């Protein structure tokens, strides 16, 4: 496919000319051709279009590599020679502009299902990966300052402060519930430490009509929408006030009212669900989208691929939000995939995709805001890959120090903490202070401890809830079973726990 190389370099030239960028990369490409008259194996041709805000994404706005290093000598020679021949226009006229507009010559176009394809005599494999990874959109530096060229969606003071408050609440809530599990008061918990920006900022960029299909590390979305600390505690303790009627493990929150679908344990099953719901929204003509969250590990599941393909074909308004946090329990991303993360997978399915800094609340907010607009206005899916780090263990059943270094964890917990980064920006605008911080953390802690006490003391769900909701109406066999069970309990009251209501 030297045609591809021809396109790549002519494209680079075309783009450089039309967008009149003078970035060294584009200049480097042209100058190396003029200077050396050849491109060597291992050369990199950079595209100048790395502006992440353009919604109209250029077809090849990523780095292009001329020759992959692992081909053997012979192949390299062949490819080099041919590339050189093509680049120097032995087979085409010079100065005829962009390679796409070329007609005639030895290239033959053919009509295949899906569109015209050029035939080329050279055999060239697309490289499995590019030497440079897809760029990552970020707004704030490590000191919480915006870069000089930062572009982001503006935030009002109220929204910014609420975002920060909710991020802190999430952090405190995670710490306290984790401790509660360690004390044996709840059976299980998993934290979202390190991913507070993803949780809260993405929720802030959505509207309440947008439907959320979570994995399990997104309670911050519920928090933003108004789920109270008491409601969280009730679910974890499985008492009678739990909206799940005590049927699920802790952290499997769900709320119809807040458009947050109940957390389900199997990985990635929520991804095609989100596509189906988005299809329903499209059929209803509603100005809303669905969003679904999953981790780097979830992108290996079959459901991920089926859902992305489907969403692109059916053209539905769904945001696929991948939390690439480096670890799937003990599996690092190097063992999870060989592609450049999840962002290139979106492109492979025909979906506009972006990679963002998941620890930068403003970047998350801006990207989700833009994605939502695109998804709804153009009825199309969008993929966002947020790079972040899972600071906590996978869950209370995991000890991650067994498979990763404590230095790594500490580095991300302190130097890359999304909460402190955002705090610096909010304080820089004069909207927050140390006093407010201490007050909020103390109040939240007190409120949480109170909520846990209340939840612990609240009664468990009554016996009848064992049999309801299997079907829409309780079937006769379950009615009989309930009747028999109650008779047995009446006959043997000492064998039945006294604190569980009948």
């Amino acid at each position, binding site marked *: 496919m030297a045609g591809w190389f021809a396109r790549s370099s002519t494209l680079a030239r075309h783009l450089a000319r039309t967008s009149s960028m003078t970035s060294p990369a584009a200049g480097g490409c042209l100058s190396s051709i003029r200077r050396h008259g050849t491109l060597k194996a291992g050369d990199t041709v950079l595209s100048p279009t790395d502006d992440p805000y353009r919604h109209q994404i250029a077809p090849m706005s990523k780095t292009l590599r001329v020759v992959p290093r692992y081909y053997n000598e012979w192949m390299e020679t062949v490819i080099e020679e041919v590339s050189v021949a093509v680049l120097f226009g032995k087979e085409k006229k010079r100065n005829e502009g962009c390679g796409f507009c070329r007609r005639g010559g030895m290239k033959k176009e053919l009509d295949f299902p899906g569109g015209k394809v050029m035939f080329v005599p050279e055999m060239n494999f697309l490289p499995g990966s590019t030497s440079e990874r897809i760029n990552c959109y970020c707004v704030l530096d490590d000191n919480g300052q915006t870069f000089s060229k930062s572009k982001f969606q503006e935030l009002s003071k109220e929204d910014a402060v609420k975002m920060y408050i909710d991020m802190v609440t999430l952090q405190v809530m995670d710490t306290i519930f984790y401790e509660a599990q360690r004390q044996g008061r709840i059976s299980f918990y998993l934290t979202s430490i390190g991913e507070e920006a993803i949780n809260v900022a993405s929720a802030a960029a959505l509207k309440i009509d947008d*439907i959320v*299909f979570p994995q399990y590390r997104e309670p911050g979305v519920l928090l933003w929408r108004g789920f109270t600390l008491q409601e969280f505690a009730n679910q974890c303790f499985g008492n009678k006030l*739990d*909206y*799940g*009627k005590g*049927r*699920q493990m802790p952290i*499997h929150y*769900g*709320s*119809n009212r807040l458009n947050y*679908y*109940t957390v*389900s344990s*199997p990985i990635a*099953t929520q*991804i*095609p*669900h*989100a*596509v*189906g*719901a*988005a*299809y*329903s*929204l499209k*059929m209803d003509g509603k100005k809303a989208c669905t969003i679904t969250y999953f981790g780097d590990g979830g992108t290996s599941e*079959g*459901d991920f*691929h*089926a*859902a992305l*393909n*489907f969403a692109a*074909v*059916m053209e539905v308004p769904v945001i696929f939000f991948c939390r690439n946090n480096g670890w799937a329990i003990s599996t690092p991303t190097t063992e999870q995939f060989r592609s450049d993360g999840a962002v290139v997978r979106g492109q492979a399915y025909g979906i506009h995709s972006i990679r963002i800094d998941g620890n930068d609340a403003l970047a998350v907010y801006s990207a989700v805001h833009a994605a939502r607009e695109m998804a709804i206005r153009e009825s199309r899916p969008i993929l966002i890959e947020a790079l972040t780090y899972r600071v906590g263990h996978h869950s209370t059943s995991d000890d991650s120090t067994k498979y990763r270094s404590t230095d790594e964890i500490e580095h991300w917990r302190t130097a890359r903490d999304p909460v402190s980064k955002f705090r610096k920006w909010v304080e820089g605008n004069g909207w927050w202070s140390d006093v407010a911080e201490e007050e909020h953390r103390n109040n939240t802690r007190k409120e949480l401890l109170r909520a846990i006490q209340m939840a612990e003391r609240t009664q468990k769900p009554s016996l009848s*809830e064992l049999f*309801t*909701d*299997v*079907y*829409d109406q309780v*079937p*006769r*066999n379950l009615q009989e079973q309930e009747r028999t069970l109650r008779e047995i309990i009446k006959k043997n009251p000492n064998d039945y726990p006294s604190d569980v209501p009948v």
Partner: protein
Amino acid sequence: MLGIVRRKVGCEVFSAMKFSLALRKVLPTGSALPMNYSTATKEITVREALNSALDEEMSADPKVFLMGEEVGEYQGAYKISKGLLEKYGPDRVLDTPITEAGFAGIGVGAAYYGLRPVVEFMTFNFSLQAIDHIINSAAKSNYMSAGQISVPIVFRGPNGAAAGVGAQHSQCFAAWYAHVPGLKVLTPYSAEDARGLLKAAIRDPDPVVFLENELLYGESFPVSAEVLDSSFCLPIGKAKIEREGKHVTITAYSKMVGYALQAAEILSKEGISAEVINLRSIRPLDRATINASVRKTNRLVTVEEGFPQHGVGAEIGMSVVEESFEYLDAPVERIAGADVPMPYAANLERMAVPQVDNIVHAAKRACYRSVPLAATA
């Protein structure tokens, strides 16, 4: 066969009058149903029955839509959805990429939101690629979300053995899905069953697995005008007594009902009057009808096409032991497919699936007119 038709006609004349009298009391005035309807007017195939049921439900409720491989342009792999794409457009009849896991998951997601999808599997053998969504995402959701998420979805498609399609196209999944609380499992036999049960399934708020049979698609059955009415619906969880008898009860579902009826005909010539029950609904199982029948006849033969171990017959046998043990005069006989993956060669395939003689012999064993199985071992 003619005898059965004539008998059906006879029954229906009698019940028709009673029914129309009852109707007049129950229905509001100006009802669309005719007051005195003639009996056994038309014959339609199961395929036409399913097609008309889908058509009517889709026109009655705009939330109903059909999704599956080849359902649109190809008119359905077995032509069940013929004409629907033309009539309702690509928004409501979706041709999907080849990913059962994908479209089952997407259907469940649409049902979560409030649409009423009908998801077609080309055969239920391929539903195994989507079974996580059927069980973990559909069946359990209402319970696990404490009633917040209901899943009014129907999974339908051909189930069980066809002719010469080998092991991966011939398994019966009735027992697999009937095992799961939260699902409803229906197995129509005749055109009336197909129409009534599919309409009931689409209207039901719970997830329903609708197991059809490829070889029955082309078979014609007589239907009354009541069945052809667009409001016709059969209740889920009620079995139908296809043929009354007094000596032995034979339960069957799907294609085996036809075989059981033939066996009953053969048995009647030998003086054994068999009662044939068309189960129609595997979950919930109509234990009341089965037990009432066994209490009348005192002998039971269960017939199914699927593998014997942990099959539908095992559940029926146990139900009868639990509720009508004293009424049994003979051990329960269980006829099922051979315990091997379905072979391809026509002669082997014939031996792997129950035939009419197997049912006849089992009924005779139950009536002590034949040598017991153990003696031949």
